[in-house]
């Protein structure tokens, strides 16, 4: 035993010590097996590292470098067309952004659209997941395909179809409601409604896919047992199904919230941010790409990055989402 402790190194030794009295019966066997798996797992870990390293390095290069570059640039007064005259301005960009009402207005709109779309998508997504799971065998394939089609369409293309459906020149939706001359993108609330609808239509399949994965993990006999015990449909849903797929729900919620918060395409295509529909992402785009204020735009991007990080933290620490659980 002392031999195996030595082999396992300092970490293994301290872990082993509380178990010494209990594990007295088969010390030799446990030791050998642990040593065996530890060598093997070390080799596996090494192989895993080697396999993952190229991807990790590429990821660092393509995401880590631009992020660091953006953080660096965000501390400069920098205009793309006038790079010689850039100077370090001690975080004045952040003061400018955070003291500008436009930042808070876009942040508010982004949060509004995130909360509304994610809430609706969650309910709808769960419903679709139930339909996909419980559909009769013969129609299961077609139903799943139909539900997933919107997710397969490129966001910009989808945004254009929604734009054309509601646009005054080409739109046909107004005639359904007898308000042919109504300009959907002409005021805040209707523009918000159309953008939200487009988002919900587009990404509900994503949520329902994650939900389906969670639903499929619930053992059928568990639900059957509840039925035998006389649980009603509602009780089975709230006492058996939902608690058992909580982690799947939380993972779906987190991914979708992160995605919804970064909304850009639909707004860019439909309103260009007019009538109070600019989002944080489009604000960053406007500063950097349109205004060429690279420093100011980088500051907005960094703040956007921090917001996304905060959302992640909230989910992982606050709601205790375990990313490993989603796969079961």
């Amino acid at each position, binding site marked *: 035993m002392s031999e195996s402790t030595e082999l396992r190194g300092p970490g293994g030794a301290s872990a082993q010590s509380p178990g010494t009295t209990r594990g007295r019966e088969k010390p030799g066997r446990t030791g050998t097996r642990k040593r065996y798996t530890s060598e093997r797992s070390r080799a596996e870990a090494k192989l895993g590292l080697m396999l993952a390293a190229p991807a990790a390095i590429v990821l660092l290069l393509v995401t880590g470098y631009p992020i660091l570059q953006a953080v660096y640039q965000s501390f400069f007064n920098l205009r793309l067309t006038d790079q010689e005259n850039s100077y370090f301005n001690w975080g004045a960009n952040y003061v400018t952004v955070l003291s500008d009402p436009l930042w808070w207005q876009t942040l508010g709109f982004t949060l509004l659209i995130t909360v509304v779309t994610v809430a609706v998508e969650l309910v709808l997504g769960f419903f679709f997941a139930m339909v996909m799971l419980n559909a009769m065998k013969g129609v299961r394939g077609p139903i799943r395909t139909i539900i997933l089609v919107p997710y397969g369409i490129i966001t910009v293309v989808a945004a254009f179809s929604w734009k054309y459906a509601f646009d005054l020149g080409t739109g046909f939706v107004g005639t359904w409601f007898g308000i042919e001359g109504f300009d959907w993108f002409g005021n805040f609330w209707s523009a918000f409604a159309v953008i939200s609808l487009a988002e919900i239509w587009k990404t509900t399949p994503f949520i329902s896919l994650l939900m389906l994965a969670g639903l499929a993990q619930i053992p059928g006999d568990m639900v059957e047992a509840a039925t035998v015990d006389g649980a009603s449909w509602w009780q089975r849903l709230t006492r058996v199904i939902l608690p058992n797929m909580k982690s799947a729900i939380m993972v779906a919620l987190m991914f979708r919230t992160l995605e919804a918060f970064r909304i850009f395409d639909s707004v860019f295509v439909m309103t260009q941010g007019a009538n109070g529909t600019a989002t944080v992402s489009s604000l960053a785009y406007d500063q950097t790409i349109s205004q060429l204020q690279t420093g100011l735009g980088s500051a*907005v991007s960094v703040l956007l990055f921090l917001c996304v990080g905060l959302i992640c933290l909230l989910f992982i620490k606050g709601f205790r989402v375990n990313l490993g659980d989603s796969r079961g």
Partner: protein
Amino acid sequence: MALSGCQTDPGGNTITWYINPDNGGQDALAEKCSADSGGEYRISTSVLPNDAESQREQLIRRLASNDSSIDIMSLDTVYVPEFANAGYLEPVPEEYTESFTEDVIEAAAESSYWEDELVSAPLQANTQILWYRKSVAEAAGLDMSQPVTWDQIIEAAQSQEKEIGAQGIRAESLTVWLNALIESQGGQIVADPEAEPEETELGLDTPEGEKAAEIMSTIGKEGLGGPSFSNLDENGALLRFQGDNGGFMVNWPFVYSALVAGGEDGSIDQAVLDDVGWAPYPAVEEGTPGAAPFGGVKLAVGAFSSNPEAAFAAVDCIRQPENQAEYFITDGLPPATREAFDDQAVQDELPYAQAILDSLETAASRPISPYYSTITGGIQRSWHPPADIDPATTPAESTALVLEIMRGEALL
């Protein structure tokens, strides 16, 4: 730059021309000039995005990273100062400066310079005129053979319950409109366009700006622009104009070919077409002619081009008056050179050509400033939607906002 031996190098004489999307007119000119050059160069075109703003974004991103593939670019006239100020445009060599500006309409020539140096060649000049429905003007008792004012049009539209098709959308066309209203009164949005952001003074918070705000807000508030006014662009305005409520419209000449095409495919009644008339851009004050908006496209050579000699030779060919005339006929985009308007084919095919030329002669440019996109962005934010404009406060608020954005103290 030293003369390169490109004429003898069969593979290296291709020059790239970044064009704005059109009906194929620029492609045709590229082919024609390539053939005429006798092998000196071959122009290949590359199409930019649809709207001027996206064209600017793409070109400027490429030029900021010293893209040598940009030999010639079709550049919207308002972006010339920004590009030139950043050092992205190759100044026109002396041998061409005279021919590039000879007989060119004043607004087009003036906007081709930056800091007294010719940096581009006018290819095309554009302007808006007043389009009206003869029946509406007649019923309202307006004599359209005389210059009319905005107040008269507003009154006529009110009395006839018809619409005024201006562009109320939060886009460049809103600035186009505001600039025309201010210039028509002899004012200017930017007093000294070459000043640094810290010293810039704006002419928005002036009696001229206030009057412009009054016109725009009246059309917005009283619903004279139609139900979708706050989102109405040039195409939208045309659609409303050809509809039952159409009365008046300020718009670019493309509407003529669009109306004719609509008549040919049957989507517009001949009676409507016969009812359409055109007149000079409306004035603000009676007795002072209106200053119509000026737009158009310049040909510029990229500062990082590997073959600027061939590029300028190609520009010289493309901008020839007869090519401008041809481009006018094929694409409906008016020439920048007066001579091209005299072309017999132009006179035959485009009955409104003279009205365009007259309008161009009095047209006023938007601010010729390297910070133009910042200025227009700030204007679009503070003057939109038109129904919410308050002549007492909007000009002052807008001035403060634009200056803050120019100095990098506010977001846009």
